[in-house]
């Protein structure tokens, strides 16, 4: 059961799919070459915190390891003893002897190490900020915006044998601490395994054989990432599990790979069960936007910003929500805010370019092109805008022609 269990997962955002659709269309014009790091890079990093040097350096290395999919390097920074200890304590049952538990834990350790990069390592990761907290260092990383959405993960670093090591982490979007998630999951597994042999002493320990079958079927469906099976299995799950966010989150995660309404359905289920808990606001934004509940979406994003601090990605999302509502001035205001937070976040400019073109602010669109070429060294020229229909009018504008002439 644990052999292929990988409950890590990227959460997706339908909102981001909307926005990414916009971005992708703009990104289609981007030259393939990665722009060299601008000299302005140093100009506007996030506000500096009082950083612990060893912690900050390890934090940057983790971002680099994830971005480069460097599993070996990342695993070298993992100290899973804390997490495994949690799992081990959850498995404290009479059913599994010490050897079996050790074996199970060893398999889990192997799984975590083999899947960590796979689950988190598909994008570029940036260190947003870090906080020294006694002998700990909390390292907040965020993925770049991409068609897979965006992830925020806070790694919990501790000094182990003179090195800063990852001992735990929290998926901030899901509000899920890995060690707790494993403890809960393995605790339930142990309980279910044990319930078939051990007499119940309380009514809540009375499990029917069917409950056990349904539970393990759900886990198998998660393991196989079979979303239709997951939904069916989830429906059959006992109330005991449905009252826990963990299982609803597993459903959301599995459904996020599908754009056929399953994702919205999973989110709706999650909202109905746990939507009253404010901290899940960011997870439900896709649902809010889909259902045009913009105020809730904005509220969720702002709460999330309070949690993770200033970040241009959040301002971009707010801008998109404002645009969805036709609030043009607010859209530009949030874009300006995104630039102020971090002028080097290039996605802001691509988003702006498309909107300025759509709003027929061609002179201003050229200003964006100037920033992209001068600050980011993009080798843009007229032909980059030829293929896409939406730039047709822009290409004919006086501002664009002058810019293209200048670039020629």
């Amino acid at each position, binding site marked *: 059961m644990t052999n292929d269990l990988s409950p890590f997962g990227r959460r997706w955002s339908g909102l981001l799919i909307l926005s990414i659709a916009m971005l992708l269309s703009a990104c289609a014009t981007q030259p393939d070459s990665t722009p060299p790091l601008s000299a302005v890079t*140093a100009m506007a990093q996030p506000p500096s915190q009082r950083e612990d040097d060893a912690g900050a350096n390890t934090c940057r290395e983790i971002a680099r390891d994830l971005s480069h999919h460097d599993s070996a390097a990342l695993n070298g920074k993992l100290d899973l003893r804390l997490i495994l200890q949690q799992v081990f304590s959850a498995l404290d049952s009479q059913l599994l002897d010490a050897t079996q538990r050790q074996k199970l834990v060893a398999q889990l350790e192997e799984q975590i190490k083999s899947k960590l990069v796979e689950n988190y390592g598909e994008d570029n990761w940036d260190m947003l900020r870090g906080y020294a907290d006694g002998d700990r260092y909390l390292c907040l990383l965020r993925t770049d915006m991409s068609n897979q959405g965006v992830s925020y993960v806070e790694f919990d670093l501790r000094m182990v044998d003179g090195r800063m090591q990852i001992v735990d982490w929290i998926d901030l979007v899901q509000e899920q601490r890995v060690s707790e998630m494993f403890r809960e999951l393995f605790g339930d597994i142990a309980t279910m395994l044990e319930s078939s042999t051990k007499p119940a002493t309380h009514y809540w320990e009375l499990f029917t054989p069917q409950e056990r079958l349904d539970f393990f079927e759900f886990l198998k469906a998660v393991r196989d990432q079979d979303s239709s099976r997951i939904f069916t299995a989830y429906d059959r799950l006992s109330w005991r599990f449905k009252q826990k966010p963990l299982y609803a989150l597993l459903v959301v995660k599995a459904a996020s790979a599908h754009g056929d309404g399953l994702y919205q359905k999973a989110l709706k289920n999650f909202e109905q069960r746990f939507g009253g808990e404010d901290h899940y606001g960011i997870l439900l934004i896709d649902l809010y936007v889909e259902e045009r509940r913009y105020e809730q979406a904005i509220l969720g994003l702002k709460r999330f910003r309070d949690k993770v601090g200033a970040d241009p990605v959040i301002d971009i999302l707010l801008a998109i929500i404002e645009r969805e509502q036709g609030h043009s001035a607010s859209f530009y205001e949030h874009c300006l805010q995104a630039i102020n937070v971090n002028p080097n976040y290039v996605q802001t400019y691509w988003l702006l370019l498309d909107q300025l073109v759509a709003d027929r602010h061609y002179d201003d669109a050229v*200003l964006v092109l100037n920033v992209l070429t001068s600050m980011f060294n993009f080798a843009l020229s007229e032909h980059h805008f030829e293929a896409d229909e939406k730039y047709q009018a822009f290409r004919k504008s006086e501002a664009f022609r002058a810019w293209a002439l200048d670039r020629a």
Partner: protein
Amino acid sequence: MVGLAQMEPTEKGYLVDRAPAWVTEQSYDANKTSSASQGTQYLLVDQQQHVLQDQKLVPPQYHYHFVIRILNSAGLSQSSQLHITFNPAYQTLHLHSLKIIRNGETRDVADQVYVRMVQQEQQLASDIHDGLLTAVLIPEDIRVGDIIDYSYTIEGRNPIFGTHHFGNYSLNWAVPVDKMAMRVVTDSSRFSFRSVGIELKPTMARFGGLNEYKLVRMDVPAVIDDGETSLEYTRYAWMDFSEYPSWQAVNRWAAHLYDGVSTANDDVKALALKLRQQATSEQDYITRALFFVQNEIRYVGLELGVNSHRPRAPGEVLQKRYGDCKDKSLLLTTLLQLQGIDAWPALVSSVARYSVMRNLPSPGVFDHVVTLVEFNGKRYWLDGTRLYQAGRLDNLGIADFGYALVVGHRNQELQRMYETLPIASLVEVEEDILADAFNQPVTLKIKSVYHGNAAEMRRYQFQTVPLDNIKRNYLEYFSRYYKNMSAESALTYEDDTERNRFVVYETYRIDDYWKRGNALVQNKIFNLSYIEALKAPTVRQRQSPYYLGLPRRVNSVLRLHYPESVTINLDETPVSIENPAFKYTYQDRYADGVYTHRSSLNVLQKDVAVNDMDSFLRALDQIHNDWEYTLTVGVAASVPGRQELQTLKARLKKLAGKNHD
């Protein structure tokens, strides 16, 4: 009496008589030429002593015979006055001979030499009155080329030391010595000898029914002293001898001197009661008792006779309100013991420190007394003579004397005070350089937080030196680095006596800070936190370890707030410069127009081993590069895209309906 006439000193304060019969005359070669370049040639240095177990019958006698030749006028001024120090409270000086030999002709002037008796009180500056007297012999008509041959015996010994004898003879000097001799004549068979610094053993023979130990060294070269070395690594050598078989025996000797509780009178008990009523906890009681002894009992050492080592009764010390280290230690120990707290006086050496272990057991090695407190499973070494201490038991400043002999403790041996070298102090410095524009002066704000010993040093400075003088000295110090600097506001400080922290705030203005080129701006950075913290030794080619001082830590953050965002090419990789003696780390950062230099110096050892000197000096040179350097940045016009970005942002403001700002 063995050879010395049993007479009282004359009005002169000394006697002129013949050498005792037990003394063996040592010959010397008067024709031996000196290859040394100093002003005085030492032809003979002979030291002998006669010590019997029954001191009442025959007082100990210490005989000295020196023969020197004046080589030049420098030697004439250095050596034509002879100094003999003794303690008239229990010693008598017998001058035997003072011969001036010129061109083979000898005249003995012992009877007629002018002798000035001087109560030097060399330690008076530290309020110690030891009663020592120095006889200054001023023979007439001494010329370059003359040989001065003089001998004397000092009879008597401090009675506090009882029947066990001990002492030491130097085996080399800072100058060459042609012949060096030592001799001990005794009826005791308990003597042990240990040579320190050189492997030598005295020969033993019988002499007039007594044991005779002697050693002669010829052509003893001068010690080349590197300086700045802990005594345990000194290149000087000596012969130690002692009748004490062990440190336990020394401890037993000391124990009968330090029975404080039995001598605690009502005044001491009343003080203990008062402190108990004021204290909020036992820990608080300990520090209150310590601060009382430190601050309410004036330090005066009347170390006359037996009081050189026997403390005065706590009641007497309390009544007189003064005492020396042992008096204070016994009073403190007594106050703590009255509260049921485990405390003992502890003998230490403020000079020998870790070197104590090299010596044979004897009371002579100790010159200071502190107090050991064992409380809540921890050991605290408290010093009643120390001033300007503050804080709680766990954050008091510390003094590491290496080893201590804790009087009456269950462990009667020499004890290492701290198992690992303690970190004596921590200094945290934050410097902010604030700039409004590149053509304006900058403001330098400094916040220095001193902990531990550093806090006590700073407290001492601010309590004894007028604030204006400190301010002027600080400004003077900084001005060596920053030209055109002036104090912008008053120097302020906070003395956090609860946490033993001392915080100093300084603000300066620096004119002409920036050097501007076309699109580049330069400025100098000085990490002044360290410049005084770790220095190179005066002698770099060393033969003995370099003494660094106790382990300590300095953390520094320097922030340069540029007037605007700049382009800066920084290697933000953390740098660590390590050496067995210290670790220095630093890292440069730049974000949001602020250049941050974060660094830390950990001095890990108190000494740099000779074998580590090369790497120490290399590392020191390397880190000096980080203590003074130039930053060069690109400004506005040179930042790619900056102008375009500003234009775009201005437009976005308009589109966002924010035209007003």
